[in-house]
């Protein structure tokens, strides 16, 4: 408490009062016996440069959030639908096209199969969604398929899921960004030469949006997602009305007379390939199950309901677009100009070159950009869970000022940018790598749930087990189909995932080894220290910084010696004379260094000291007290302490050695009185 208490006068002469200063109050709040809560002021930078950086960070990412504000950052169902579903919902913009691109190879007659295939994929989506609802309720703490596999299957399966999902999340960012850039280029062909740069800028912008935190990224991304969804629903309603009520539709394709029946010829393989291509619609379905803790309470219920809405919406959009495209005989066109299926459907319903058409196209491009955002939420969460389990560096589990998993967000951005640069930002080059990993995760996750129900046997377990077993079988088959249909490029995933698994196992082993090494028995009572201590002070000369370091050294242990490494014997002799006169109680050891090295002779001297220590005694702790001059300004600091820095680096990791820096500040020098003479 401060001793300065100015008197405050009241209304009457006797009613004086004094205000008591509370020194801790600026930085801490008392929270209980021996417990404080740090205020925001305690985290604020103290240097001018630090404050300037903080102001920039504040402008870019917003103010720092405390963990107590996390609940306010939780997502409502409306925002969560936009954040976690932009990937899944945006796939309705291209999934139909992927089917048609396969079927069109088999001739016009094969196009009729697009609707049944779309319905088949929608049914698969239904099964997967029901399975994920069960997963959310069984594992409400999030983690999705990884958590399920980790709890129910041998450890390697969880790592396979994690590796597969991490790869797929990076692919989602790369593919959706490239695809969106292609939409922009089809409108503005002059930008084709800077497609990679546009994609990089887009990823950086999405990264910054996510670094601002969950709720704000929800605000940024919700509007385009909902406008695209409602715009597409309007297309479907108007399209169905025109087809059913007004009887508008293209005539069914007639096979050419005498031409072979391509459908019969290609048959099952063609259908399977089209199904595999269209199944990209399912990517992103797992994101909600991974991010359950991001929802407002009750988290599992809100997540499960959001998943249901997302699945219904995606199913309706996907089947609806396919039905309208099929009815109007729309197929993808690549020449003379690129015309995507979704753009042709929009032109048919809203009218070619109308304002509504351009608005819809704009939001289609936007949602493709934002599809990447699903991965920006899922990847960092999965990485954080893996870090918590010791399979990724711990930095991935730390949250930044805005409660976002900063490292995961940044690493995902870098990985996606590298992919885009490597593949020239061309979507078709990236597509074969896409959607393979997610089916691995679907399958293993559901197998894990089957084992969960078998061991738990809670109410209704047989029904739940049947659903998950059926889902696992279905997604397992689809995985093989997707892998085969997109081979050989898809097989690259089969190389990348094992590499990731090996990396995770390596990290886990390192953490495990260090944890085992540091572990202490719970019931061990720690005795007082009994090892002897000695102190070495490397001294270049006698000055205030050296004297301060020597005084600190004296407070550590009585066994103290100063060591001067010198390449000038005459200078060393003068130093000894001065030292013995001014610091007579501290022995000085002079090590002449004719080869002018500083660090080597100092380390050798410490080694010799160790060797001369009696064998029957435990090794002492050697404190190396390094005097350090701290200049006022950062630009001054580069002029000093290079030798001290080198010595400190060399001593890092030396057994039984503790390095103590004793900084001498210039402000101290200005105030410090001259020591008494004589």
């Amino acid at each position: 408490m401060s001793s300065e208490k100015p008197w405050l006068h009241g209304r009457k002469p006797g009613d004086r009062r004094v205000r008591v200063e509370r020194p801790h109050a600026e930085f801490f709040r008392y929270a209980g016996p021996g417990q404080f809560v740090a205020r925001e002021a305690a985290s604020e930078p103290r240097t001018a440069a630090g404050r300037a950086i903080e102001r920039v960070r504040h402008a870019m990412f917003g103010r720092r959030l405390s963990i107590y504000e996390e609940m306010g950052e939780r997502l409502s169902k409306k925002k969560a639908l936009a954040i976690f579903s932009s990937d899944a919902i945006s796939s309705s913009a291209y999934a139909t096209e992927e089917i048609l691109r396969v079927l069109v190879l088999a001739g016009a007659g094969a196009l009729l199969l697009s609707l049944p295939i779309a319905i088949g994929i929608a049914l698969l989506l239904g099964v997967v969604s029901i399975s994920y609802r069960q997963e959310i309720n069984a594992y409400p703490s999030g983690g999705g398929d990884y958590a399920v596999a980790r709890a129910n299957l041998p450890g390697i399966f969880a790592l396979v899921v994690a590796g597969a999902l991490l790869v797929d999340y990076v692919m989602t960012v790369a593919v959706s960004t490239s695809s969106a850039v292609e939409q922009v280029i089809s409108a503005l062909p002059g930008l084709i030469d800077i497609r990679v740069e546009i994609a990089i800028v887009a990823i950086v912008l999405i990264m910054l949006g996510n670094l601002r935190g969950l709720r704000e990224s929800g605000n940024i991304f919700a509007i385009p997602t909902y406008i695209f969804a409602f715009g597409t629903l309007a297309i479907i309603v108007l399209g169905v009305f025109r087809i059913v009520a007004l009887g508008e539709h293209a005539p069914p394709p007639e096979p050419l007379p005498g031409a072979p029946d391509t459908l019969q010829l290609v048959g099952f393989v063609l259908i399977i390939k089209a199904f595999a291509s269209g199944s990209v619609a399912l990517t992103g379905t797992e994101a909600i199950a991974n991010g359950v803790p991001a929802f407002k309470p009750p988290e599992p219920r809100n997540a499960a309901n959001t998943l249901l809405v997302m699945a219904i919406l995606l199913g309706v959009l996907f089947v609806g677009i396919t039905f309208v495209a099929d009815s109007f005989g729309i197929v993808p066109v690549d020449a003379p100009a690129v015309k995507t299926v979704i753009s042709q459907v929009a032109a048919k319903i809203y009218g070619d070159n109308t304002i509504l058409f351009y608005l819809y196209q704009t939001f289609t491009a936007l949602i493709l950009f934002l599809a990447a955002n699903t991965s920006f939420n899922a990847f960092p969460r999965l990485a954080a869970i893996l870090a918590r389990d010791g399979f990724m560096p711990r930095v991935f589990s730390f949250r930044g000022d805005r409660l976002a998993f900063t490292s995961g967000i940044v690493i995902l951005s870098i990985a996606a940018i590298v992919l885009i640069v490597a593949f020239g930002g061309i979507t078709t080059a990236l597509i074969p790598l896409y959607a393979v990993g997610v089916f691995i995760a679907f399958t293993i996750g559901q197998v894990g749930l089957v084992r969960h129900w078998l061991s738990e046997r809670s109410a209704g377990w047989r029904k739940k087990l049947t659903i998950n077993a059926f889902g696992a079988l279905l997604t397992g088959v689809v995985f093989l189909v997707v892998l085969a249909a997109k081979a050989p490029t898809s097989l690259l995933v089969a190389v990348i995932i094992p590499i990731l698994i090996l990396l995770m196992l390596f990290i886990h082993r390192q953490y495990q080894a260090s944890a085992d090494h540091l572990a202490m028995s719970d019931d061990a009572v720690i005795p007082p220290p009994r090892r002897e201590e000695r102190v070495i002070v490397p001294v270049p000369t006698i000055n205030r910084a050296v004297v301060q370091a020597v005084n600190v050294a004296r407070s550590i242990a009585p066994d103290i010696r100063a060591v001067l490494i010198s390449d000038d014997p005459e200078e060393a002799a003068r130093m000894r004379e001065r030292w013995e006169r001014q610091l007579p109680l501290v022995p000085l050891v002079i090590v002449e260094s004719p080869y002018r090295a500083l660090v080597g002779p100092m380390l050798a001297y410490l080694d010799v000291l160790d060797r001369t220590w009696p064998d029957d005694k435990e090794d002492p702790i050697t404190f190396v007290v390094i005097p350090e001059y701290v200049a006022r300004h950062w630009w001054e600091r580069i002029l000093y302490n290079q030798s001290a820095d080198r010595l400190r680096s060399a001593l890092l990791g030396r057994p039984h050695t503790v390095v103590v820096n004793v900084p001498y500040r210039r402000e101290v020098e200005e105030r410090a009185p001259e020591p008494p003479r004589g």
Partner: protein
Amino acid sequence: MAEGANPNPIRKAVLGLNGGPTDELVVNLGCQLAKPNAAELVAVHVIEVDWQHELSEEMTDENLAASAVLDLAEGIAERYKVKLSGDLLQAREVAAALVDEAIELGADVIIVGLPYRKRFGGDFALGTTIPYILQNAPCQVIVAREPVPAAGERRDSTDKLTAGSGLGLR
């Protein structure tokens, strides 16, 4: 309330705390009133200094305990997301210091607690502080009374907000 209903919204309220059982009640009530108008709360704890000591004398033990009371009040306000600052005073008279502080801060309302006294059959003893505030405060005064315990229920003497002994600053 000492005065008729005021239609003007509260912008600043002074909460009189004393480390007693009504502190939590007062802070909660203040937060509920402040929240709709984003009003500012100032929690005031007055340490009464008797005439044997200088008014500005260091009252280390009392200050630590009182500081803890103010910090805990801030903790409650944080949960409500209401701005609350602590004000620690030393004075000869608690009531006069509270009123003078409210005047200086330009507060619209003073909220104080009235504990229930169980002895002698139980009653609300106004003492001298509350009547002084009611009579001299130029703003509204809200007196939050401690709930009357049910028959046979004993108040636990440890349910106070004070916890200065573990402040760690000694």
